[in-house]
C-alpha cells in the first residue's frame, strides 16, 4: 500500500514537526469550507434550528478542534457536513465545499447518491463518537475494513483488501492477527483505533473525529491522541477533532473553534484561545477546569444553563449568562468578525458585540469598550 507522504503531496500545507508556532498560521489552502450551514431537527412545522448559518474552514493538513458545551451542535455540524445526520435532521441551507488534491471544488450538499457514495471515505472519513456501536457486532473487523476498501476500489480482491487492512491495523498499533476478531473481543481503546484505521483505509484528506476518546481512561486517551498526531504528520490529512476536553484540545489542535448554541463564537489558533480568549464564553470555559499541575487557580463556572435551541430570541444566545452583556446583546445576534486587538493573529474571528462596534452602532447604541479580560495580549 502506498500512503501518500504529505511532504511530497502537491499543495500540502507546510508541516512543522519542529514546533507548534509555525502551525499556527491558518491554512491559505482550504480543503473543506463549510459556509452558512443551517440544520433543523424535526420534520414538523416547528423544528429546532440547531445550526444557524455556521461557517468554518479547514485548511489542508490542519487539526481543527471543536469545543463547546454539550448539546451546542458539535456533532450535528460534523454529521451534517458529511450528510450523515440521522432523521429527523434536515439540512436547510448552506454549502459544504470540498477541494480535492487537484484543486477542484465540489459542494457535497449537491451531490446525488452515487456521487456522494463515491466521494465518501475517499475524500472525507469520519470516526463516530461511540466506537462500541460503530462496528457491526456480527462481522470480523477485517471484513469491515475490507468492504470499505472494496466498495471504492472494486478491482481489489478480498485478499488484497485484507492485507491492506492488516497494514492499517499495524499503523494504529494493533496486531494484524486481530483482523479475525469480532468487535466485542476488543477493548474500547482497540475498537476506537480500529475505527481510526478504517477511516484511514482510503487515504482520505479529511478526517472528522467526534469525541474519539471520551469513553476511555486517560492512559488510553493519550495513546490514541498520540497516534493520530503521528499519523497526521505522516499522511498529511486534515482533522476536525471534537471534544469536551479543552485541555486535550489545546494540546493537539492547531486551531480551535468554540461553539455555543449552534453557532461558532470564536475561531482562532489553539494557544491564542487558551491564553487570550476573546469571547466571554471561551474565557469562561477555560476557567472552568482545574489544572493538573502548577499552581491552583481560581475556577470560575458559567452561571445559568444553555438556552433552549427551540426558543431562541433575536439577541446573542449567550447574553443571559454573560457578565459583559449590555443592552445591544439582547437585540443583535453577533456575527463572526475579526477583533482588532493589536498584535492578534489577523485571521482569528469572534462573534461578540464587544468586538463588533459597528453592529452595535447599527442598532443605534454606543459600543462600550472592550473589557480587559477579553483583550489580553
Amino acid at each position, binding site marked *: 500500500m502506498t500512503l501518500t507522504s504529505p511532504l511530497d503531496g502537491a499543495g500540502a500545507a507546510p508541516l512543522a514537526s519542529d514546533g507548534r508556532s509555525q502551525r499556527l498560521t491558518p491554512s491559505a489552502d482550504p480543503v473543506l469550507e463549510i459556509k452558512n450551514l443551517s440544520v433543523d431537527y424535526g420534520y414538523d412545522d416547528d423544528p429546532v434550528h440547531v445550526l444557524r448559518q455556521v461557517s468554518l474552514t479547514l485548511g489542508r493538513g490542519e487539526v481543527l478542534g471543536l469545543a463547546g458545551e454539550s448539546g451546542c451542535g458539535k456533532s450535528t455540524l460534523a454529521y451534517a457536513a*458529511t450528510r*450523515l445526520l*440521522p*432523521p429527523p435532521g434536515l439540512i436547510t441551507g448552506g454549502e459544504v465545499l470540498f477541494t480535492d488534491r487537484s484543486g477542484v471544488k465540489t459542494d457535497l450538499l449537491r451531490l446525488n*447518491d452515487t456521487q*456522494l*457514495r*463515491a*466521494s*465518501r*471515505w*475517499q475524500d472525507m*472519513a*469520519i470516526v*463516530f*463518537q*461511540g466506537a462500541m*456501536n*460503530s*462496528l*457491526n*457486532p*456480527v462481522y470480523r473487523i477485517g471484513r469491515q475494513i475490507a*468492504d*470499505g476498501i472494496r*466498495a*471504492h476500489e472494486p478491482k481489489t480482491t478480498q485478499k488484497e483488501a485484507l492485507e491492506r487492512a492488516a497494514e492499517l491495523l499495524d499503523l494504529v498499533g494493533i496486531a494484524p492477527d486481530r483482523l479475525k476478531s*469480532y468487535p*466485542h*473481543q476488543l477493548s474500547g481503546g482497540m475498537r476506537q483505533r480500529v*475505527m481510526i484505521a*478504517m477511516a484511514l483505509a482510503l487515504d482520505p484528506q479529511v478526517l472528522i473525529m467526534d469525541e474519539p476518546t471520551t469513553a476511555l481512561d486517560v492512559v488510553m486517551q493519550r495513546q490514541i491522541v498520540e497516534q493520530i498526531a503521528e499519523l497526521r504528520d505522516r499522511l498529511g490529512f486534515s482533522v476536525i477533532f471534537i471534544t469536551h476536553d479543552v485541555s486535550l484540545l489545546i494540546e493537539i489542535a492547531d486551531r480551535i473553534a468554540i461553539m455555543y448554541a449552534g453557532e461558532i463564537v470564536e475561531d482562532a489558533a489553539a494557544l491564542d484561545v487558551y491564553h487570550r480568549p476573546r469571547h466571554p464564553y471561551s474565557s469562561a470555559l477555560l476557567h472552568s477546569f482545574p489544572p493538573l499541575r502548577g499552581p491552583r487557580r481560581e475556577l470560575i463556572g458559567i452561571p445559568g444553563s444553555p438556552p433552549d435551541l427551540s426558543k431562541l430570541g433575536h439577541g446573542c444566545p449567550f447574553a443571559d449568562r454573560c457578565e459583559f452583556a449590555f443592552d445591544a446583546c439582547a437585540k443583535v445576534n453577533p456575527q463572526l468578525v475579526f477583533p482588532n486587538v493589536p498584535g492578534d493573529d489577523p485571521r482569528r474571528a469572534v462573534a461578540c458585540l464587544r468586538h463588533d462596534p459597528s453592529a452595535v452602532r447599527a442598532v443605534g447604541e454606543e459600543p462600550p469598550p472592550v473589557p480587559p479580560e477579553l483583550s489580553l495580549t
Partner: protein
Amino acid sequence: MRFFLRRLGFYVITFWAAVTINFFIPRIMPGDPVRALIAKNQGRISTDAESALRTLFGLDKDTTLWQQYVDYWNLILHGDLGTSFTYFPTPVADVIAGAIPWTIGLVGIATIISFTVGTLIGSGIGWRRGTWADSLLPISTFFSAVPYFWLALIAITIFSVTLGWFPASGSYDRSLVPTFSWEFISSVIYYGTLPALTIVISSISGWILGMRNMMVTVSSEDYVTVAQAKGLSERTVLFGYAARNAILPQVSSFALSLGFIVGGTLIMEIVFSYQGIGYYLFTAVAAKDYPLMQGIFLVITVAVLFANIVADFVYGVLDPRTRQEG
C-alpha cells in the same frame, strides 16, 4: 460450550415439565375414550359394546395414576409411545410417522416461504420507511387479523368450488397410490398449493411487521450510519448491515414457529382434509385417545425444544456476541 450445556440443562427441565403436563392433562379430563367413541357414533354403536371396548383399550385394569406415570416414562425412554385407541392396534409412533411428513412438508414449506418473503418485504418496508411501501402494512395487517378458517373456507369456496382451480380437500389425488413418481409428486404439489397459500397469506404479516420494526431499529444503529459513511453500495448496506442484524430476533421466532410446524395447523388440516398431525391431535382430543394425544404432544414438545436449541445454535453462529465466554 458451557453456555450451551447450561441451555441444555434448561431444556431438559422444560422437557420434563412439558411431558409431565402432557401426561396429566388428558388424565384429569372427564370422560373416557369409550364413551367418546359411543358419543361420536350417536346410536350406531350399542351401549352393550362398552365393556368390550373397555377391554380392547386396556381400560379395564386399575392402575394408580402414579404407576401410569412411571410406566409412561419408562415407555418414553424406550422410545415407545403406546398404542392408539382410535386406530387400535396401530402404535402411536406409526400414526405419527405417517402424518408428520405431510405436515412438515406443507406447513414447513409454507412457513419457510412466509418467513422468507415476509422478511424480505419487511426489510424493504423498514428500509424505505415513510414511502408508499408503508401502505402495505395495513393490508397485511388485515390478513393477519382475519381468522384463518374464515380465509381458508372462503378460499375454498372461491377457488375450489366456484372456479375449480384447486381441489378442495385431500393431500393428493385419491386415485393415486403414494409412490415416488412425478405424477404423484405433482399431485401432492397441486393439492398443497391452496392450503399453503392460505397459510402464507395469513402468517406473512407477522414476519413483515417483525422485520420492519427491527429494520427501523437497526437502521438507526451507528454501524449502519458508518456503513453509509464508508460509501458502500445501498445493497450492501441494506442486506449486509441492516437486514443482517435485524434478522437476528426473527431467527428465534422462526425457530419457534418451525417447532410449531410439527404441531401442524390444526384448523388448516381440518378445513382442507389434509392428513397431517394437527388433525390427528384434534381427533385424539375429541376421542380421548390419551396415548395418541400424549404422543403427539411429546413430538411437538420435542420439536419445539429442538427448534429452540437449533435457534440458540444458529443465533450463536449469526451473532458472535453470544459465543462470548464470560
